[in-house]
């Protein structure tokens, strides 16, 4: 595998009018690796994702796709270049079947001329196959309504869909935030599977445990800046948590709270 990152940000700034949101962000996203973006609420994670996925354009700095400068006019353009974003519950329609969800906007059809029929059988078969490949074996019927699936399964469906439609970079926006422990583990396995298939994954989270489980590279975002970036194994969980809290040590915080409780 070459060393050129699939997607790279070089000294990217983003401001909305007078308000600076991102300062001097440089990131490298490599194929077959998971880059974890960590940060507290308001650290600029959403803006960063939106810049990566073409919703916003950088104010300064450049973005490179396969080493060549690139700019995305809109999310569609980014998608066509293989950058897929999966939001927390985005991309799934609760009252539609698994097969219909999977192919929304790209339906397989049979028939001729203007008489096109949605090919339900093929859609269901492929959807279930892809889900099984991703390790979701509980779903065997493509006619199942997505609203009846668990949060993790819905998340997995969205990821499987992005992979199937040729994504090279997978941006996962807080995929585990609203999930229980088991469900989160499920999604993390899928992230690993995507990585194993050679996708470049950007994994946004504020749960250090989840990041540690799948991440190869880490970047901690504080107030729009990359406060620290490091590779797997270079920092312990406590150190990362402290970084995210803005340098304030969690241990100190705990001691403070304990002291208060004793005093009371």
């Amino acid at each position: 595998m070459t060393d050129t990152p699939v997607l790279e940000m070089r000294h990217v700034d983003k401001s909305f009018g007078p308000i600076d949101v991102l300062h001097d962000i440089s990131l490298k996203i490599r194929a077959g690796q998971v880059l974890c973006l960590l940060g507290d609420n308001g650290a600029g994670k959403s803006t960063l994702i939106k810049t990566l996925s073409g919703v916003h354009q950088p104010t300064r700095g450049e973005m490179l796709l396969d080493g060549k400068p690139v700019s995305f006019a809109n999310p569609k353009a980014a998608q066509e270049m293989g950058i897929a974003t999966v939001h927390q519950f985005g991309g799934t329609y609760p009252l539609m079947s698994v097969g219909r969800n999977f192919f929304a906007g790209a339906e397989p059809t049979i028939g001729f001329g203007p008489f096109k029929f949605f090919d339900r059988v093929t859609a269901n078969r492929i959807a279930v196959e892809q889900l099984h490949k991703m390790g979701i074996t509980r779903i065997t019927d493509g006619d199942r309504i997505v609203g009846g699936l668990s949060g993790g399964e819905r998340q997995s469906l969205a990821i499987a869909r992005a992979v199937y439609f040729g994504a090279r970079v997978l941006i996962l926006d807080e995929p585990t935030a609203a999930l229980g422990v088991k469900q989160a583990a499920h999604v993390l396995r899928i992230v690993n599977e995507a990585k194993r298939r050679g996708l470049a994954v950007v994994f946004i989270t504020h749960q250090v445990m989840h990041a540690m489980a799948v991440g190869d590279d880490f970047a901690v975002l504080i107030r729009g800046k990359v406060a620290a970036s490091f590779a797997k194994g270079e920092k312990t969980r406590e150190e990362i948590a402290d970084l995210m809290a803005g340098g304030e040590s969690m241990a100190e915080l705990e001691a403070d709270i304990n002291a208060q409780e004793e005093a009371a």
Partner: protein
Amino acid sequence: MAKTTSNEKQSQGGFSILSLFRRPEAGAAAGFILIFLFFSIFGWEKNFLTALGSSTWLNFASKVGIIAIPVGFLMIAGELDISIGALIPAGGIVMALAVGIYDMNVWVACGLSLAVAAGIGFINGWLVTRTNVPSLIVTLATLFVIAGLNAYLSKQIAGTTQHSMPDVGPVSEYLLGDYHNLIFTSGDREMVIFRSLQSSFFIWIVFAVVCFYVLHLSPWGNWIFAMGGDQESARNAGIPTRRLKIALFMLSAMAAALVGMSEAVLANTASTTTQFGMIFNTIICVVVGGVLLTGGFGTVTGTVFGTLTFGIVFQGINFTTFDKDLNLLFIGVLLLVAVLMNDTFRNLATSASTTKKK
């Protein structure tokens, strides 16, 4: 989507009553059967079940039904269209003026009327997609604008608000607005299949079949559901949400104009009176038919059943000994019961759409 669910299940694990109930149109169908039986019993002596009696409510239902289906599409897509109340008379007036004043061929006039309606529908859709103003407000505004134009232009051009519509020839009458009978006679015995059914009833059936194809069999139906389920995701998935929504507004406007034309040809007159009642009628039919008010869910079959139910309740009271003043009360109760039932059926559909695998 739903139709197939139960087929699959039957092939997997034999026939199950529960799977039948899980079909989204089950509620509407059950409601229709109950209401039909009820009025068949209480309307027996006043000929509810005869061919002529059935035509009374089928004719009424067909006009509501032609508009209710595209209004249902819009509701699935998360929008409403109430401007249809003024588009019904507009459709009739444009045709009557084109034929009566400008001596146009009836089919040219028909095309013109549809084109005018399509234009108004386009404006509705364009305003809704560009401004993000709720479609209720946008179409409320266009409802009054068109109602005003109906009256003003009628007076300016023809000097009246009641246009007489000349006879448009047997073939056009036959297709657009006439009474149809199908009676087999052998000797002095006769078997009546139907009597005095209006053309609009047959238009409704054909239209419903086409719409069923669009919503449930074609890929576009998938887009409509996706758009109503989550518009943002649908757009991200590459579905042209704006164009699709505008097309749906155009469809409902044209359907309304078609009903207006059918009425004008049948009665040989077109009036500017805005049909406010039809606005509520179509929405009731769609909701009774199981379409989710918040979008993302619904069926054409359900809407058809909802319309039939509504037609019976609206007209059927004349066949019973109940006081006619209770009519609206019945409809209100029907709507409430339907909404509650739909909720239950929908929960069944999402909670366990297939047999649990353990």
